[in-house]
């Protein structure tokens, strides 16, 4: 009997991090916090870096196996400045899924930032994202290029006309002496049924009217696509899903953007 009790006690102590209060809890003792802010601090401002090279991936939901491979492949590519995970980190918007992916991405050599996807907004996912990664709309400047990461998951707000937040975007797109180019990053692309059709015009116009606007980067469809929704010549680029073992390497030199598809 004493042995049994000791066995129970040992099992309990050994597995302290395995106690779960609910699949819907939005944080726990081991979940990461403020990943985006911390990683952007590591990244720095990139002043003097004349070749900006970063990875665009997304839709890592149900794909931890592929995420492990992804880290190895990205770490082997020279001179990657940072990685963007463009939404649908999770399938069900739960803490465990985001923990699994974020723990794996800790193995990346370059810092990464995450953008929210529609699946991440189901259940308590938005709370989990806010805790683990940070704001839903945020921007950072690297090497004179401003990356405007934002929530474009209109359907999750039942197309209330507030998402994407165009007034916020316009504020972010204002000219600045230290910024030569702009890149928008969001999960749902403008040509999707999940994007608020009432906002398409205002959204694309806001980008088209910004001098030095380079590209809109998206995910969501799980298929690579390059399209031009208007006559501005601005490319809208969709990356394939993590689960399809494909990502994009994007390079910006002299305010010119180019990219290549990488399969792994």
């Amino acid at each position: 009997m004493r042995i049994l009790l000791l066995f129970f006690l040992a099992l309990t102590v050994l597995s302290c991090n395995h106690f779960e209060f609910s699949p819907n809890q939005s944080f726990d003792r081991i979940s990461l916090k403020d990943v985006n802010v911390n990683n952007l601090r590591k990244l720095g401002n990139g002043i003097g870096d004349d070749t900006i090279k970063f990875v665009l991936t997304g839709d890592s939901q149900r794909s931890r196996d592929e995420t492990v491979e992804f880290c190895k492949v990205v770490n082997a590519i020279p001179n990657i400045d940072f990685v963007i995970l463009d939404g649908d980190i999770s399938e069900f918007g739960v803490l465990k899924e985001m923990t699994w992916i974020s723990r794996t991405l800790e193995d990346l050599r370059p810092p990464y930032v995450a953008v929210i996807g529609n699946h991440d907004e189901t259940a308590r996912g938005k709370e989990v994202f806010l805790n683990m990664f940070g704001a839903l709309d945020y921007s950072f400047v690297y090497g004179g290029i401003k990356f405007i990461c934002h929530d474009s998951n209109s359907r999750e707000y039942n197309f209330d006309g507030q998402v994407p937040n165009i007034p916020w975007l316009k504020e972010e797109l204002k000219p600045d002496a230290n910024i030569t180019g702009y890149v928008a990053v969001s999960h749902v692309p403008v040509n999707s049924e999940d994007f608020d059709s009432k906002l398409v015009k205002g959204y694309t116009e806001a980008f088209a009217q910004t001098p030095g606007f380079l590209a809109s980067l998206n995910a969501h469809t799980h298929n690579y696509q390059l399209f031009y929704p208007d006559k501005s010549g601005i490319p809208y680029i969709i990356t394939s899903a993590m689960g399809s073992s494909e990502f994009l390497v994007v390079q910006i030199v002299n305010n010119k953007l180019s990219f290549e598809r990488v399969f792994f």
Partner: protein
Amino acid sequence: MYFFRFKLIFILLVAVNIRANAQSLKFLIPDGAVAQYAGSIGYFSAGVSYDLFPNKRGSLDAMYGFVPGNRGGVLHIAAAKFTYRPWSIGVKDWAKFYPLNPGAFISYTFHKDLSFKFPSGQYSHDYYYWSEAMRPHLSVSSEVEVNTDKFIRNTGIKAIGFYIEANTNDYYLINYLQNTSALKLNDIFLLGIGTRVKF
């Protein structure tokens, strides 16, 4: 007057019925009480327990659980848990050890962000295929049951059990089945401990 008479008869009928059913309603009296820490149905949860089957190797627990704000956000959870104890090892005559008990339970989390079904006006019927509020779980537990009659008499408590339980749910199983090299079974099975007092 007619109405009044009708009402009286009705009340009499109900009263007679309750009396007649008092015996048959006995099955509603629980056979035990349960209190649990963690186990995916609350930081702390408590409820009543019913023995099942003639050999009493099965149990059905009706639980209410709570997660406080500082432990992961405020959540209220109801759960119905079924456990079966196929093996029993006697420890002298004062305890029993049930080493491996399979089980299943359903949890329902009450929260404004969690719907039973995604609204059909907002999404086509197969857009999201699961329920946010209702979760099916699979569990396996170990339990030690001490026969308290032997030590303290006349308390009305027959036995006290202590258990440790590992459970997973549909979310985690789907993730696991598609990622069998990066996810291990101990990633998707989460723990809870509890005690069961038998009347």
